[in-house]
């Protein structure tokens, strides 16, 4: 049945349209590669270049001369990895409690958490900045890591996952064996929810890697920023952008992200759909 649908004249027309869509999705990436391999004078000429040039190394050298690329990349990695580890631990621990235990105040606390989910970021932005300035965190990566260490989305997601994935028989058996709360979490819950954790981890890493608005405000020292903020600085404020150089930076910044996405693509795309129609 499956093969009939995709073949024949109608199938060819369908795939033609889909391939055009695919090219439109991919083109900006290709365009970035072209620009990162040409000098600015070559880019600003007519007709536009459509095949890669030979100035990649030159652009790379300009990039490294203008921003502390590896320092910024280290900051981005530090923030993204720390937040991902903290979120996975705190969110799954809280989700385990909400999914599998009864205790006074459970409903109220859960409803409160879902309400928090709806509060837009800029409502809290000014006081957050003031509080962190008082704590001495402004200008440091701490200002990015601590507030992101646990979130409502992750707890909600993991709770839904754990409700069906961890069977009550398993919980009872482990309790009869004398396992305490932390042992149940570590030895019963975590092993069976690995796919859910993988989704949350990849999602969190990518979100943190790409985060821009809050780092732009909180990282007040221009020499100590994350990669996204450094790239935005490169883009220049007076119309004198060296596109070859900026594009090289933008492409390099994509590499860790594409690796993580390639590893988890199947998981992310599959689970995204399931979550939306639940």
């Amino acid at each position, binding site marked *: 049945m499956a093969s009939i649908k995709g073949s024949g004249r109608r199938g060819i027309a369908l795939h033609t349209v889909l391939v055009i*869509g695919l090219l439109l999705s991919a083109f900006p990436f290709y365009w970035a590669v072209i620009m990162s391999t040409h000098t600015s004078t070559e880019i600003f000429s007519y007709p536009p270049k459509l095949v890669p040039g030979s100035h990649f190394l030159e652009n790379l050298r300009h990039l490294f001369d203008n921003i502390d690329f590896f320092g910024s990349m280290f900051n981005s990695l530090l923030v993204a990895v720390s937040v991902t580890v903290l979120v996975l631990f705190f969110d799954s621990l809280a989700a385990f409690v909400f999914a599998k235990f009864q205790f006074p105040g459970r409903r109220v606390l859960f409803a409160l958490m879902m309400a*928090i989910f709806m509060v837009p970021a800029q409502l*809290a932005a000014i006081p957050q900045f003031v509080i962190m300035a008082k704590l001495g965190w402004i200008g440091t990566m701490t200002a990015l890591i601590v507030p992101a260490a646990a979130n409502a989305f992750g707890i909600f997601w993991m709770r839904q996952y754990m409700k069906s994935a961890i*069977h009550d028989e398993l919980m*009872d058996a482990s309790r009869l064996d004398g396992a305490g709360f932390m042992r149940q979490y570590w030895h019963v819950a975590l092993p069976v929810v690995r796919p859910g954790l993988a989704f949350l981890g990849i999602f969190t890493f990518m979100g943190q890697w790409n985060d821009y608005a809050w780092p732009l405000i909180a990282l007040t020292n221009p020499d100590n920023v994350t990669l996204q903020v450094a790239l*935005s600085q490169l*883009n220049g404020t007076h119309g004198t952008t060296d596109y070859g150089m900026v594009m090289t930076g933008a492409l390099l910044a994509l590499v860790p992200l594409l690796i993580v996405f390639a590893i988890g693509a199947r998981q992310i795309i599959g689970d995204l*759909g399931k979550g939306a*129609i639940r």
Partner: protein
Amino acid sequence: MATAPLLEQPPTAVAEAPTVHPGKGILSHWRLYAAISPFYLLFLCFGLIPVGFSLYLSFHRWDGLGSMEWAGLSQYQYLLGDSDFWSSIGNTIIIWALATFPMIFLAMVTAVMLNSAVRFKNVYRFAYFLPNVTSIVAVAIIFGSVFSTNFGLMNALLQAVGLDQVAWLNTPWGIKVAIATLMTWQWTGYNAIIFLAGLQTVPTELYEAARVDGAGPVQTFFRITLPMLRPTLLFVLVVSTVTGLQSFAEPQVLLQTTANESTYSGGPDHAGRTMVLYFFQQTFDNNDFGYGAAVAWGIFLVVVLFSIINWRLVQRRGEE
């Protein structure tokens, strides 16, 4: 509650109910409260207190350094008469509409096609999703070069087919179209995959029945696919409303090369200044924390109102 000894019950009966910890009182659950406490502590410090404080702040004048002055309702009074704020609402909604309607249409068409083309489905899904995982900063820089006035790719294309060039990032409509194109590119594939998941829940018997009744593809789409997709459509519309009305990074990065006074100014004539961009400008450029807080609450109100309107529109269409 905990009087019945658990061991006397057969294991299956225990399995029915969620696990109950033996013991009495709130204190016996201390491990559970400790386990959920990190989220609530963080929320208290960086969520509840800040939101409360921003409400308090919006009734004051404060530059972030000196002492706060009570201002009563004057910040909100000023907000209501602030033509810059109203024009930023207009800009935001125009950009949102220019991006969202083509995006939903394209995403739905893509999803319907993916649902029937079985071969290479995973390749397509992977490629269509890719724009969404890339950072807005990188994407905005790339689109900035594509829409660049002199020698940008878009103008090269226009020139190639004999049309006049457009100063995309220097005219009010050009700016909005450029931002909307960027958003459409980044979110179409994402929403197509969500629609695809929705399509896969439509029972195939419905399509069979329609074909037996002699319905064409267009009729089938409007009579079966669209009604069955309504819950998914609602989800997509609400998510795009909430995220689209709070767009910040797209105009900020795209227009910072043509902005003269501040990186938050939204380009020539402030044509790309969205609500959140205006909030940033008032707060972090002008150090007007009191007014910034009032603007933030104004944005919140607009987003909530607009979401409710969209929700109602899609729901009522469903009842007819």
